[in-house]
C-alpha cells in the first residue's frame, strides 16, 4: 500500500468503531499523510511509508516543554512504559519526543486504521502520565 492508496481508503471510510477521520496529504520530499482522529484533533497521526514499513508517528512534546531537572527521570519512565504500552513506542526526532508504531509494508488497511486509533489513544495516555515532567 502506498500513501495515495491509504489516503483514498481513509477518504472513503466514514466511521470506524465510532471514530471519524480527516485525512490530508502533506507534500514534500517524502509523502506524508496527516490523519486527524475525531476527539483527538490536537494530536494528529502522521503516516509515511518506506520500502519495508509503514510508520505512524505522533508528536508529543518538544525539548523546550520538558522540565530540565526532571529530564533524566522522564526518559527512564518512558523507557519503562515502552513495553506495557500496547503497539506503540517512544522515540525522539530532532528536538521532538514522539510516539510511533511501525507496521509491515504489506499490512492491511484495517491494521493501519487500528494502529492510528491506538496511537491517538496512547498519545493522550502518555502525555497525561508525563504531565509532572512537562512545563
Amino acid at each position, binding site marked *: 500500500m502506498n500513501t495515495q492508496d491509504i489516503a483514498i481508503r481513509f477518504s472513503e471510510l466514514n466511521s470506524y468503531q465510532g471514530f471519524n477521520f480527516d485525512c490530508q496529504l*502533506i*507534500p*514534500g*520530499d*517524502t509523502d*506524508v499523510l*496527516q490523519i486527524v482522529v475525531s*476527539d*483527538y*484533533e*490536537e*494530536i494528529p497521526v*502522521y503516516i*509515511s511509508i*518506506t*520500502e*519495508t*514499513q509503514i*510508520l505512524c*508517528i505522533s*508528536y*508529543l*512534546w*518538544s525539548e523546550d*516543554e520538558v522540565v530540565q531537572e526532571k529530564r533524566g527521570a522522564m526518559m527512564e519512565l518512558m523507557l519503562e512504559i515502552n513495553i506495557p504500552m500496547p503497539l506503540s513506542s517512544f522515540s525522539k*526526532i*530532532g528536538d*521532538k519526543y514522539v510516539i510511533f508504531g511501525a507496521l509491515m509494508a504489506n499490512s492491511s488497511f484495517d491494521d493501519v486504521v487500528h494502529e492510528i486509533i491506538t496511537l491517538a489513544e496512547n498519545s*493522550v495516555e502518555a*502525555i*497525561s502520565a*508525563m*504531565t509532572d515532567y*512537562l*512545563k
Partner: protein
Amino acid sequence: MSILNKILTAFRGGAREVGEAIVDANGTRIFEQEIHDSREHLKKAKHDLTDVMAKQMQTTREVNRLKESVNEHEGYAVQALNKGDEALALEIAEKIASMDADLSQQEGALTTYSGHVERLKELVRKTERQIKDYERQLSMVKTTESVQKATAAITDNFAGSNSRLLGAKESLERIQKKQLDFDDRLKAAEQLQDETADKSLEDKMQAAGIGETKDTAASILERLKKK
C-alpha cells in the same frame, strides 16, 4: 563501521538537523549496487549448484550401475571357472577389470561433485545472509532519512499554514475537556431517557388507577360533598 554507528555519528555530528542526509546519496547508491551484485552472485551460484547436483545424481546412478555390473560379472566368472572354461573366465575377468577402472574414475568424479555441492550450498547460504544484512542496513538508512524528510515536511506545513503545534499539556487539556463534554452529554441523555421512562410508567399506572391518582373535578366535588 556498522550502519547504526554511522547513523549515531551523523546524529551527534549535527546531522540531527532535519532534512540533512545521514549517509550521502552516493553511499546509498553504492549500497544498492552491492545488493544488486550479491543478488547476481546468488543467481549464478544457485544455477551452478543445480548443474552440479544434476551431475552428482547422474554419477551416483552410474556408480551404482557399475557396482552391480561388476558383481554380476564376478558371478559369471565363477560359473565359467566351475565349468572349467578358463578362457571364458579370463575374458570375463578382463571385462571386470575395465569396469573397475571405470568405477574408480566415476567414484572420483562423484567425490569431486559432492565437494562442489557442499561448497556451493555454503556460498548460497552466505550470500543470502549477506543480502539480508545489506537490505536491513539499507532499510535503516532509508527509514532514518524518510523520518527526517517527513518531519521536515510536517514542520514546513505548520510554518506555512500559520497554525502552530500546541504544547502537549494544552492539547491534553483540550482533549480531556472534549471527553468530559461528551461524558456530560451522555449523562444528560441518560437522565433524560430515565425521566421519560418514569413518566411513561406513571402514565400507565394512572390509566390503570394504580398509585397516586390525579384529582379530577368529579372526585373533588365528591370530597366537598362529604364535608
